[in-house]
């Protein structure tokens, strides 16, 4: 059953068609990748899914409900979380606070609870903090809960972003170039993390990546975009051999080199 289904989504900037008739689906429990040359429209497609852009045409169905017209916070409440291509943490909040912000929609407390420090409030806060710590460990960070987010090195920041996205308990996790700027070893760890998220938490993952080691290594399914359109889709093996993809994107070397 497909968790996310888009039909003929179009997003234009003036005369430029950044996403053109994207029809695309993600099955529950899968890790799916979107690849494509720079400027192909991948990030724009993500932004259209999450409500940051309003697509001009087409429909987006998530668990069979339309997402069209929803604000980003509403999309997030439906169960889609994301990370950003350029890291966007709340730099002067601590790591733990960043994760707690991610839990915003899950928390039930209201202003009155906060004012009167009701039992519900205290329990929920305590619970939330424990969960946040647990998440931190889950993504491989220890003892940095009280650091300011922006003080962490790049790789650490990427991890917080993922933890923050997980904090909302999403059904679908969108990752935009999560391993950019990581060295091969760190990338390896990230791949393991993504697998665990899917396997242990059952969260479906949709991924944009330029690192073929990641893409080919963990995706069940890959869609390739170019000039806003989907030019190919299939399993890693199929994509690797696809002539059009090789020309537009992979380049001869990459295609021939090993994983």
């Amino acid at each position: 059953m497909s968790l996310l289904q888009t039909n003929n989504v179009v997003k234009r900037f003036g005369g430029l068609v950044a996403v053109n008739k994207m029809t695309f689906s993600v099955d529950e429990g899968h890790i799916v990748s979107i690849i494509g040359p720079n400027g192909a429209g991948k990030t724009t497609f993500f932004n259209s899914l999450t409500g940051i852009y309003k697509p001009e045409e087409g429909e987006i169905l998530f668990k069979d409900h339309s997402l069209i017209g929803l604000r980003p916070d509403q999309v997030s409440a439906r169960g889609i979380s994301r990370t950003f291509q350029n890291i966007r943490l709340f730099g002067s909040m601590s790591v733990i606070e960043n994760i707690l912000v991610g839990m915003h929609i899950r928390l039930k407390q209201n202003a009155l609870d906060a004012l009167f420090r009701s039992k519900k409030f205290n329990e929920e806060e305590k619970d939330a903090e424990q969960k946040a710590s647990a998440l931190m460990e889950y993504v491989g960070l220890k003892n940095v809960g009280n650091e300011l987010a922006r003080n962490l090195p790049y790789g650490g920041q990427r991890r917080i972003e993922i933890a923050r996205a997980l904090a909302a308990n999403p059904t679908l996790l969108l990752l935009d170039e999560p391993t950019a700027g990581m060295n091969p070893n760190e990338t390896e760890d990230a791949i393991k993390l993504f697998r665990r998220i899917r396997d242990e938490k059952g969260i479906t993952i949709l991924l944009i990546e330029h690192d073929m080691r990641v893409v080919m290594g963990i995706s069940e399914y890959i869609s390739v975009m170019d000039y806003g359109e989907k030019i190919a889709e299939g399993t890693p093996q199929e994509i690797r051999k696809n002539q059009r993809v090789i020309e537009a994107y992979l380049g001869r070397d990459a295609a021939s080199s090993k994983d």
Partner: protein
Amino acid sequence: MKQFTSNPFYKFILFPIGQILVFALGASLVLSLFTVLLAYIFRAGITGFDLVERVLLILPQVVINGLTIGFVYSTIALGYTMVYGVLEFINFSHSEIFMVGGIVGVELMAYFDHTGALQTMNQYVIIALAILLGMVISGSLAVTVERVAYRPLRGAPRLVPLISAIGMSFFLQDAVRLILSLTTGEFNVILPNFGTFDEFLVVAVPGIATPLRFQIKSILLVGVTVLMLVGLNYLVNGTKIGKAIRAVAQDRPSASLMGINVNMIISITFLIGGALGGAAGVLFALKATKLDPFVGFFPGLKAFTAAVLGGIGNLTGALLGGLILGLLESFSASYLSTFTNGAFGAEYKDILAFAILILVLILRPSGLLGQTVGQKA
């Protein structure tokens, strides 16, 4: 065609003048038509006099008044917008830079009056000297203020330089008052009488009963501001300095990596903005005939509003915003009382201006000419 548009004379002189003309005439026309239309609609409801006739009677004067003050606002607004463009903060002390320029100019004329030169020298030379002095003093003051109060704060959170600017503004007001009080015993400075600036140029227009009257002052004021606007336009769009200013505005570290001396460019920006403010101060003094250390506040506020209305950071926007605000103010102050039969008067002009501002911002959240270019998600 392409060749023609890239001709610098066209690009940097004809085009901006044309643009200013279009803005000025366009805005005046729209507001005038709107007002007359309203007068026709309400005509029946008001007895005792003919509303349309009364509106038309002073319409030319109202337009001219609006444009005159509008140009002053525009010139001040440019100072706000330039500094905002480069440092992304509201330079609150700009209204005091403006005030200092005006006071210095008037004091120069008072000095000429004292020595008797005022009556013997050519009046335009005197004005030119006063404007020049105003520009030099205000420009250097702006640069100094930046050195002292803003430069040490680079990289601090956004509110920090804002507060420093407010502090500077307080300081300048009182410092000028102190200096004036100690030297002259009081702090009003009064424009001496000289020349023919108060006189009117009367132009009879066929078809209109009352001839149009242009005060020489107003013509001078408009002329000088247009000249400065054109000069600024050339500087910002036609020279390497202008390009550097825009680059510094957007990303300081990157600009320095391009080989641009960031500090110098920021100083130059303050120099230009300050000089424009100083010139506006002298021109404003010609109109107001009296200045004091607190006179900068309201024009400053209006000019800042104008900058926002036009799209802050956008030079053309500041020009347009200033003109619109000046006209709106003139129209509402002159007509509100007539239209509402005295229930609402000139005192509501600022509310009207503000309502328009909100309306514009709701429709165009970045101002009339501001572009919305954010970083992408």
